[in-house]
């Protein structure tokens, strides 16, 4: 790869947009429609040299893509482009943005859409009229951006989210991300006397750290996890949300008599279960139990609180309170069944209101609650909830205009932009406040109330961002999923999960983190 700027800007994109897709969508079709004919029509003439060559071509065609796309995006280029010169730091420009440099922003185009970011980009352009802003939104974060990281030519701001999220742990451990401390220490967009860090919700800054002080990630959305239900349906059973497990079983029994299942969950993605199960473990056994689990400490899963909570959930299965067929449903299917009133409760995050908007009836009266506990001997009060940042934004270390990327984030963290986001996509942001004066949807309102009730009892288990494979595949699918489908007992599930955690703790190819 040469070092002219032209090549740098065109090639990586070329690779990014064609080859990874080639693997997923075009090559199977390509093979399916073209090469078989080639093989088929020559065969009656016999296995000559010609057809042998053709067959080996066909062989290559099929088996190569898996490998060639990998090497196609391998690091073949030299270093990145020149960084933009920093501008002068002033009161209006505390980060010292170069007001003529280009700023490139790539957004994950997911459940929250792209309008909120476009609105924020407009403000950036108004503040720096001479700067060129290149904004794009895509669902294919990894396939478009991975080659650019390999080329040392990443954009200045990325919303690294969605199914194709790049592994944060790897990015951090390979020094690919910029420290966002300057942004956090800069004055906030609304009030020059306040630092950005002081305007954020609790836990946001810590979530962006991995080991030690630098802050690598700025989570923009704020998600409330818990048990979601229709207040209307619960009222029709003449019940309140249960605070202890005995009450939970009683409510489920009552629902069952009316032909309604107590629970359903995303059976194909059982890693939705922790959204209510982990905070329950924390409530029963205390914060340190979850911290020990996150730190991959030996025997962390063997804590009695874990056992009690697993057995409580297993009882839902044993008593037939889980919607029939649930282990075969994906998240959309289970949410739909739940919205249709086939099941009372579902563990989920606050995005469910936007995601299921088209199936949730108008009078559903969506509500979220902190998980029920076991009984009054629990270590933390009822109301203890899991809430944490969502939509992780990063500024690459090799970005050409990192100040620009951070300035764009500073704009997004202003009260006006935050309100804009909340109104448009029914979700809270990392900005603490910004909900007064706008009309909140039922789910959002109930989420805000749950946060108020929780106060400082907000938990933030980190397995899902520290160890993706462990959390999703191993604990989620092979552990909890199997247990809730009734194929293994809670004791077996705990043994299995502890084994997975030990494996991960020993695996030297994974970077390990600890709660500070």
């Amino acid at each position, binding site marked *: 790869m040469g070092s002219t700027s032209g090549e740098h800007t065109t090639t990586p994109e070329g690779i990014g947009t064609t080859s990874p897709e080639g693997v997923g969508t075009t090559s199977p079709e390509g093979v399916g429609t073209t090469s078989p004919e080639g093989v088929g029509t020559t065969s009656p003439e016999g296995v000559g040299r010609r057809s042998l060559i053709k067959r080996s071509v066909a062989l290559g065609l099929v088996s190569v893509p898996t490998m060639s796309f990998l090497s196609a995006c391998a690091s073949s280029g030299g270093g990145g482009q020149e960084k933009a010169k920093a501008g002068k730091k002033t009161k209006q420009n505390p980060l010292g943005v170069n007001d003529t440099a280009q700023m490139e922003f790539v957004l994950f185009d997911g459940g929250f859409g792209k309008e909120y970011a476009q609105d924020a980009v407009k403000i950036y352009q108004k503040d720096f009229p001479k700067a060129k802003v290149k904004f794009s939104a895509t669902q294919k974060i990894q396939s478009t951006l991975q080659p650019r990281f390999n080329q040392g030519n990443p954009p200045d701001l990325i919303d690294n989210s969605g199914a194709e999220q790049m592994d944060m742990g790897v990015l951090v451990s390979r020094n690919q991300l910029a420290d966002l401390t300057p942004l956090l220490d800069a004055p906030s967009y609304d009030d020059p006397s306040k630092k950005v860090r002081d305007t954020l919700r609790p836990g946001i800054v810590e979530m962006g750290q991995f080991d030690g002080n630098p802050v690598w990630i700025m989570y923009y959305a704020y998600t409330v996890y818990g048990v979601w239900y229709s207040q209307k349906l619960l009222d029709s059973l003449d019940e309140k949300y249960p605070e202890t497990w005995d009450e939970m079983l009683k409510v489920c029994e009552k629902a069952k008599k009316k032909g309604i299942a107590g629970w359903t969950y995303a059976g194909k993605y059982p890693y939705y279960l922790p959204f209510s199960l982990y905070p329950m473990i924390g409530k029963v056994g205390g914060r340190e139990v979850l911290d020990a689990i996150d730190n991959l400490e030996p025997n962390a899963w063997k804590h009695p609180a874990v056992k009690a909570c697993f057995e409580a959930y297993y009882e839902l299965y044993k008593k037939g309170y889980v919607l*029939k067929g649930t282990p075969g449903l994906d998240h959309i299917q289970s949410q739909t069944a739940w919205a249709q009133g086939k099941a009372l409760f579902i563990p989920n995050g606050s995005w469910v209101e936007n995601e299921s908007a088209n199936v949730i009836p108008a009078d559903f009266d969506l509500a979220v609650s902190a998980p029920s506990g076991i009984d009054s001997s629990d270590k933390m009060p009822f109301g203890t909830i899991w809430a944490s940042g969502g939509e992780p934004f990063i500024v690459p270390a090799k970005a050409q205009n990192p100040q620009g990327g951070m300035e764009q984030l500073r704009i997004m963290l202003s009260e006006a932009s935050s309100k804009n986001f909340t109104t448009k996509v029914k979700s809270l942001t990392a900005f603490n406040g910004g909900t007064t004066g706008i009309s909140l949807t039922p789910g959002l309102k109930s989420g805000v109330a749950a946060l108020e009730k929780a106060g400082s009892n907000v938990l933030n288990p980190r397995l899902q961002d520290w160890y993706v494979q462990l959390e999703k595949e191993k604990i989620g699918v092979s552990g909890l999923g199997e247990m809730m489908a009734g194929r293994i007992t809670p004791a077996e599930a705990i043994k299995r999960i502890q084994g997975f955690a030990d494996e991960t703790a020993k695996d030297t190819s994974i970077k390990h983190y600890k709660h500070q």
Partner: protein
Amino acid sequence: MHHGKYRFIVGFLTVPLGLYALFVVWPFIQSIYYSFTDWSGLSPEFKMVGFDNYTRLVHDDIFWKSLWHSLLFALVLPPVTIGLALFLAFMINVGGRRRKGGPVISGVRGSSFYKIVYFFPQVLSIAIVALLFAFAYNPDSGAINSLLRGVGLGSVQPLWLGDPGLALWCVMAVLVWSTVGFFVVLFSAGMASIPADLYEAALLDGASRATTFFRITLPLLWDTVQSGWVYMGILALGAESFAVVQIMTTGPGGPDYSTTVMVLYVYQKAFRDGQAAYATTIGVALLVVTLLFAAVVMRLGRRERLEY
């Protein structure tokens, strides 16, 4: 006459062979090279780690599971698909009852219509087929369980893709459904080129349908069958199995790793876990398996060629 023959051949072969080397052979070499590094796929820096990735591969349970599933795909799918396709193609082209005044050999009634129907799934992209079947397998409101309820089997409501014992077979069934039509058409073309007098002679001798099939049709069709076998095996090891497993048994390849296949594992390691070097190592293993499969089938299938 032969003057300049080699120059002529070389002149024609340079460009294609060059392209082949550049786009097929070179990536292989690169991949093998990367399997000896610790490249993450997310940064340009990496260093050589020797055989570390291969030792890890040997001790990786999920790799062995995915290898086993891939082998199952390669061993089960071709015989089932090709057997079914041969049967259907034979019925369409040769298996019909002899009608007065008609041709000596013909297919069953309505065979031209069946030919189109069988080919139908080929028109749909595998992604769409996988999505459609994912809906059909939905245990709560899917077509299959609804059908079971409809015929009074309400007590039999399998979880299909949610059951580790069934998921892999469910996925295989979809691949059979979507590829069998292609082979029906392929074999029909092959059967059409078999001279009719051979069949006439057999009929005069009083051969039954089964005898006709095993003594005439199959031997004369053998080359096509063998190619189809290799092709189907590669499909089962590669692209198609990836698509159905990735789309239908979403998440990590089925409940409890019950449907994880090698291609899916390559993809997950490279694009989810940021371990591109390890992914290329699995890719190398997949290459070995694919080549072995092709070699075995070619070897087993070798027999005298029949001239006609």
